[in-house]
């Protein structure tokens, strides 16, 4: 029996609590999600695009779901400060899936920009949320349908046409619970025509002794000529299972940067589904994953070029140590009529120890002739000659390896379009490779990692 059933039962038993603590579009989407889940099961190991990943197993344990919205902790905005030096941001928090604005966050927003709880937005900005919510998140993807069924809150970001946000939006996601918890987080981001925004999202876990299942769906709409950067840094715990799906639609001329970084995790599956619907779009899709122990990182991307003149630059890099498992399956699809498409996909991996395993599947489907597409994948080790060279010059082996691994990750970091964040990431990657397993992003004065 599929592990979905326990969640369907839970929903049916608590339908009033689920809907009562949510609003508008979130509630009206549940019925079709329930239909999509009828008799369905989650992907298992060996299924296409899930070659080494079983979501059935991830969803199988008996997690609690906080349908009654009981406050599980103090206001995180008061307790935490997640800083990137030299970067001033508008900060918000999702505590499990409950929205909290940071201090003074609302004051610094340009006119017309809405950043608020998705539940509140569904009630107060119903027309906007109705227009966009659940439109691109595919119910064929069962984990997405499950999220739609159970999601009660999250964040809503709306940047109106023509507005340029100087300050990046920073969202800190915190998981905290005394008992195993499933969180259904939902994010809806709408960037209007000619608007410009940047968003930095980081995932943290407190109370690391507890297992979490973080099911997350992010929908991003980028209007014509919009420019949007989305940096997603996962820095959670060994007991955290993250199943995340990004759905993105870009209109003509939109320029997007999506960067998914997994520094620390337990199990991670990220789906990135990008629809380049308009002509002349540009997409930079980057990913970086570092794993050791028995961690599992699986990134799956689908980029669909539906119109002329789109450009995609995709790069995913993995460093796998000990008994970790990495997987990358990426597809670039060029539809008939999408001429002058340029799409490049690259996946490079280092297996640093005997037990590490990498699975890679870079794919192209091209139904149009006037295109330039390429993909490449390589899996290997650190360059032994470079290592030898460095040791010969008195650099200890451990340090030399560290330097090479950092250098390996450097081109993903170089793609970041915020200088302050680049420096920060370099530092984080360095400390991660230096064996700093328990804390990485928190050399800042926050206390996220100390609990």
């Amino acid at each position, binding site marked *: 029996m599929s592990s979905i059933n326990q969640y369907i039962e839970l929903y049916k038993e608590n339908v009033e609590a689920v809907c009562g603590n949510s609003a508008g579009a979130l509630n009206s989407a549940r019925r079709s999600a329930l239909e999509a889940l009828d008799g369905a099961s989650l992907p298992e190991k060996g299924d296409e695009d899930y070659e080494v990943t079983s979501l059935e197993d991830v969803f199988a344990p008996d997690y609690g779901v906080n349908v009654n919205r009981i406050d599980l902790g103090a206001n995180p905005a008061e307790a935490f400060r997640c800083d990137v030096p030299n970067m001033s941001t508008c900060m918000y928090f999702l505590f499990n899936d409950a929205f909290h604005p940071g201090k003074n966050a609302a004051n610094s927003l340009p006119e017309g920009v809405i950043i608020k709880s998705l539940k509140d937005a569904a009630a107060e900005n119903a027309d906007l949320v109705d227009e966009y919510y659940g439109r691109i998140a595919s119910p064929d993807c069962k984990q997405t349908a499950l999220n739609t069924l159970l999601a009660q809150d999250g964040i809503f970001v709306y940047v109106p046409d023509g507005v340029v946000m100087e300050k990046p939006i920073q969202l800190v996601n915190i998981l905290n619970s005394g008992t195993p918890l499933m969180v259904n987080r939902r994010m809806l981001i709408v960037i209007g025509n000619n608007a410009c925004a940047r968003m930095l999202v980081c995932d943290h876990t407190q109370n690391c002794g507890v297992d979490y299942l973080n099911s997350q769906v992010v929908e991003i709409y980028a209007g014509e000529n919009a420019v949007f950067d989305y940096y997603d840094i996962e820095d959670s715990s060994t007991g955290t299972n993250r199943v995340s799906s990004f759905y993105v639609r870009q209109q003509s001329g939109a320029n997007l940067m999506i960067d998914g970084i997994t520094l620390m995790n337990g199990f991670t599956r990220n789906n990135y589904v990008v629809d380049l619907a308009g002509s002349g779009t540009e997409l930079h899709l980057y990913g970086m994953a570092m794993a050791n122990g028995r961690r599992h990182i699986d990134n799956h991307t689908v980029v669909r070029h539906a119109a002329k003149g789109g450009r995609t630059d995709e790069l995913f890099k993995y460093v796998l140590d000990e008994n970790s498992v990495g997987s990358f399956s990426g597809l670039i699809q060029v539809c008939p009529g999408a001429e002058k498409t340029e799409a490049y996909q690259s996946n490079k991996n280092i*297996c640093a120890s005997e037990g590490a395993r990498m*699975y890679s599947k*870079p*794919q192209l489907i*091209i*139904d149009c*002739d006037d295109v330039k597409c*390429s993909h490449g*994948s390589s*899996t290997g080790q650190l360059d032994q000659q470079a290592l030898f060279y460095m040791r010969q010059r008195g650099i200890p082996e451990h340090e030399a390896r560290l330097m090479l691994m950092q250098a390996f990750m450097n081109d993903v970091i170089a793609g970041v379009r915020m200088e302050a964040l680049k420096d920060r990431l370099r530092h984080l990657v360095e400390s991660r490779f230096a064996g700093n397993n328990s804390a990485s992003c928190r050399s800042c004065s926050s206390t996220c990692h100390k609990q």
Partner: protein
Amino acid sequence: MKEQKDKSKKDESIIKDATGGDYKYGFVTDIDTHVIPVGLNEDVVRYISRTKGEPEWLLDFRLKAFRHWQTLAMPRWAHLDIPEIDYQSISYYAAPKTKPSPGSMDDVDPELRRTFDKLGIPLEEQMRLSGVAVDAVMDSVSVKTTYRDRLAELGVIFCSISEAVKDYPDLVKKYLGTVVSYRDNFFAALNSAVFSDGSFVYIPKGVRCPMELSTYFRINAANTGQFERTLIVADDDAYVSYLEGCTAPMRDENQLHAAIVEIIVEDRAEVKYSTVQNWYPGDKDGNGGIYNFVTKRGLCRGDFSKLSWTQVETGSAITWKYPSCVLQGDNSIGEFYSVAVTNNHQQADTGTKMIHIGKNSRSTIVSKGISAGFSQNSYRGAVKIAKNATGCRNFTQCDSLLLSDTCGAHTFPYIDVQNESSIVEHEATTSKINEDQLFYCNQRGIPTEDAVGLIVNGYAKEVMSKLPMEFAVEAQKLLQISLEGSVG
């Protein structure tokens, strides 16, 4: 002077051949053929086995395969649009009414001989000059294996598989189904149940086969399927180069071809397997043509063994084919070179699997896809490095060339690396023909169509150069014919 004249005459004829355009092997030979009624059930399997006078163990093998096949569903994972196939409307056995194993050329039906002459397969004297031993398989039965006596002196066995079952039952029993089990896939199960003939090659220890061995497959009868089975065994230190060619008449209905090729390569042995696949691809509107669903796999069992696949795929309405190497021996080598051309409404989903089990095993994959017209051409390849297969190396390159805006070129590589000391690389590019190159040729008076031929041949050269000489010329011509009418 005279030589020059001859040469230019020869060139002219090549050009004439090359621009002939249509499928030239599409004739039907009017020979007396024994065809059993359509349909598939246990009785048919028993009938085939009985007709061929097979021993009990082989019948058991067939029946097991048939029963397993009944539990399977047709695979749908490939990027192919395969219409429903009614397996009960196919005849599973058709044989020319000639004596199964003719002693001399005189015993062969003259009409049959003319067919193979027409195909350019000289079964007779000229064969001796070109030094290629040929096994010709018409519909379901091997009609003539040439050159057998000379090979026998060296201990090389080259005969039809039905003869091998009779004459060398121990060898066949030892190796049959060890590389491609009847449980492997839908078409492998079907073939194992109803295979009618094919070639058997055994190269004994230390023997380098002095000539190229070749099998020519021909479907002739209507409403029949062809299910041949090839088994090649290269014992320690042996070497053989094997060629395979195929053609079929032009018919409006689709015909099924589901073959199995199994190759076993022992210590330090080497097998080179080359295919020029030119089954009838259907007409310009996609009517008719062969469904080519083939399972080919080699087992590099010995240390330092080597298996090399080279294929030129120009025919068939639908191709589903992944010649693979299981690199079990330490330091074994697998190679795969492929050119796949699809035009009009052809579809191809082809590639390879390299399974690295032995330490320090190496593999190379070079795949060139060319799509034109409304065709769909996919490369699908798997490279797997097992946990204990340390020090392995794989390099894959697959390029696609698109010649029209209505065709598709797709790449589906699956890469699974389970240890730290192996290196796997994959590269792929897709683009259309470079307009600067075309312009350059046009400028020098080369018409666009010829220029495309020139560029495509250059593009495919890396693979063509791996083919044995006789095949390379034919393949080059084929390439041109297949792309005829695809430009402008």
